[in-house]
């Protein structure tokens, strides 16, 4: 079946570094940056971007809606 | 067409609400004003005008229902009596702070505490000196007859919507319970939902259409914003004072002595004026109709003409403070008033004038409060 590739965009200034998105990602894509944003929070980023399938789990549990999700079908 | 009827004060007020096109009434039983909601439940105004009538689980719930309906631009009111009004004061403060139009009726009974169910005017301070928390005032109308219990409903809503502010009708058990002739006004159509939305779309929370969302709140965590809100309220009260102060004078043209009394006390004081005049004492009466804004000017003016003033109130002495403030101690001012629900008689009032003002005539402001009621 056609493979699906995904990606997330984190609004780095909105993210509060709560890490609630990490345990819900089935592919262990998300990690926390070493850098901090303007408020001093480490923020989420795609640690393993290739593994993301765009399933939106992370986005739906993010309390601050800092994550936008993209998904595209790719031929195998 | 207007109608002449014989009605109880409380019922005349309820009927007037229906005829004034009120959209909703939220109440709770408490003597001596339960007739208001009883009348409305019997009359079923939702059939006549679509008016909502609901008995809440407490006075606190009722006033917050008023707050809710008012936040959507609807014409809404509630009524209660002294202890119930104490429960409503937080809500009233919210309504004032959130700048919402609403009418609250207090049919006063003896207090403090559970007090008595008999009439009283002991909620004067609570009504005009704030009552709830924060810098706010209530525009207060004091009816002295069943006719005014009816007429003041529409007057109160006119003020409430003119200023987007809560208005209090301060009646008492006497006015609420007695029956008198009353001329009822014609039925005024309620605004349709569309008319309400169109008229109050700039602030009312009726659903965000293609405009910025409306928020009704009294919360301003930023001090500058809170101060601006308080200044907005104070501006309203200044304008109320300029444009909407109301009072009545009775035989003050040649008066040498003055009674100041509102509501039921003013009717008794009026009789006392007649008794006094029969004895050759030139007495007159000023009846404040609005307790806030208080009619200071007329008292200040009459203070140049009269030798003394008696504040006649069914309480231990409250409005006397505003009389003193108005006349700035130019003349002797004393208080007389039965409490506990006892209604003073005209004869008692006249005797008090003779004893406290005419006989000793001293400037009384040094005396403590206790002596004035003994």
């Amino acid at each position, binding site marked *: 079946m056609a493979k699906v590739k995904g990606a997330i965009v984190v609004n780095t200034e909105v993210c509060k570094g709560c890490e609630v998105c990490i345990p819900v990602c089935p592919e262990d894509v998300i990690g926390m940056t070493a850098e901090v944003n303007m408020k001093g929070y480490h923020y989420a980023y795609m640690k393993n971007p290739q593994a993301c399938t765009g399933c939106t789990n992370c986005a739906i549990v993010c309390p601050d809606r800092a994550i936008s999700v993209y998904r595209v079908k790719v031929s195998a | 067409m207007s109608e002449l009827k014989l009605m109880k004060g409380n019922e005349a007020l309820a009927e007037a609400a229906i005829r004034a096109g009120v959209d909703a009434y939220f109440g709770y039983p408490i003597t001596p004003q339960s007739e208001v909601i009883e009348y409305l439940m019997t009359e079923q105004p939702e059939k006549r005008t679509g008016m909502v009538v609901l008995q*809440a689980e407490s006075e606190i719930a009722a006033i917050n229902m008023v707050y809710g309906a008012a936040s959507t631009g609807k014409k809404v009111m509630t009524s209660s009596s002294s202890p119930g009004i104490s429960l409503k004061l937080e809500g009233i403060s919210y309504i004032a702070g959130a700048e919402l139009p609403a009418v609250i009726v207090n049919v006063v009974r003896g207090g403090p505490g559970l007090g008595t169910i008999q009439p009283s005017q002991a909620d004067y301070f609570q009504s005009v000196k704030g009552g709830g928390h924060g810098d706010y005032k209530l525009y207060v109308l004091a009816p002295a007859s069943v006719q005014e219990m009816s007429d003041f409903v529409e007057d109160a809503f006119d003020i409430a919507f003119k200023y987007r502010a809560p208005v209090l009708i301060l009646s008492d058990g006497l006015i609420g319970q007695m029956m008198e002739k009353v001329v009822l006004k014609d039925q005024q159509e309620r605004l349709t939902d569309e008319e309400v939305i169109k008229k109050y779309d700039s602030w009312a929370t009726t659903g965000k259409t293609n405009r910025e969302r409306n928020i009704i709140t009294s919360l301003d965590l930023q001090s500058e914003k809170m101060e601006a809100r308080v200044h907005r309220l104070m501006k309203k009260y200044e304008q109320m004072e300029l444009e909407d102060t109301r009072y009545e004078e009775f035989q003050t043209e040649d008066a040498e002595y003055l009674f100041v009394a509102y509501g039921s006390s003013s009717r008794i004081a009026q009789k006392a004026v007649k008794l006094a005049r029969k004895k050759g004492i030139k007495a007159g009466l000023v009846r404040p109709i609005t307790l806030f804004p208080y009619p200071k000017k007329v008292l200040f003016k009459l203070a140049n003409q009269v030798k003394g003033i008696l504040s006649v109130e069914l309480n231990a002495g409250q409005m006397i403070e505003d009389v003193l403030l108005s006349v700035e101690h130019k003349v002797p001012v004393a208080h007389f008033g039965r409490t506990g629900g006892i209604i003073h008689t005209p004869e008692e009032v006249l005797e008090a004038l003779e004893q406290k003002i005419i006989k000793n005539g001293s400037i009384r402001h040094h005396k403590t409060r206790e002596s004035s009621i003994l």
Partner: protein
Amino acid sequence: MEVLDIIKPENQVFCKSKLMTDTTLSYCPGCGHGTAHNLTMEVIDEMGIVENTIGVAPVGCSVLAYDFMNIDMTQAAHGRAPAVATAIARCWPEKYVFTYQGDGDLAAIGTAETIHTCNRGENIVIIFVNNGIYGMTGGQMAPTTLEGMRSSTSPYGREAKTMGMPIKMTELVANLPGVYYATRQSVHTHKHARKAKKAIKKAFENTRLKKGLSFIEIVSNCNSGWKMNPNESNIWMEEHMFPYFPLGDIKVNGKLK
């Protein structure tokens, strides 16, 4: 396939609802309030009912809900949101009216308003976020604080003998005939959040069909109040809150489960 090729407008499958403002949420990192806000706004957006929706905010952590929810909202005195909502719904029977309240607001000072609004079966939605603590005021004991749970006003743990047991409001109101739908959800994982969203949607559908009151409890975390990090608090919630406050529908279509 490079990430940048994926991140194109036409490929976007999820983003913040336009019914959420751009104001930074005042909630602590990882707090369930934010998610509950978002799910509610997503439902209102998807149902296309914003023009007829009026929210009532409480006093508590979500007192500033109207700064985040881009809809018409009225802020109610502490505990009184159900009364405020009652009046709005009675005056505007065609509108969707919902309250959004915390446990102190709904189950302590507002108990009477909650019980009687439910008993009258007002045609509104009550969203009740239960995190077992007074968050805004700094972590005091709430009506739903668990036995043995510490707070600033139960520093040695809640003691049933002197402080009573936590109140199960949803089961309590579910027994009132006026309540048509009563359910307990949570929002801390994608599964729970999706289920919670369905429940919220069902509630607003009930309003549309004038079925009466829908009562949605959302058991949520309070990492600051419980003094844990967000993920720890969610695990603690599963291990301690859920056994006492079991998730799931309690009353559906007017019938107790």
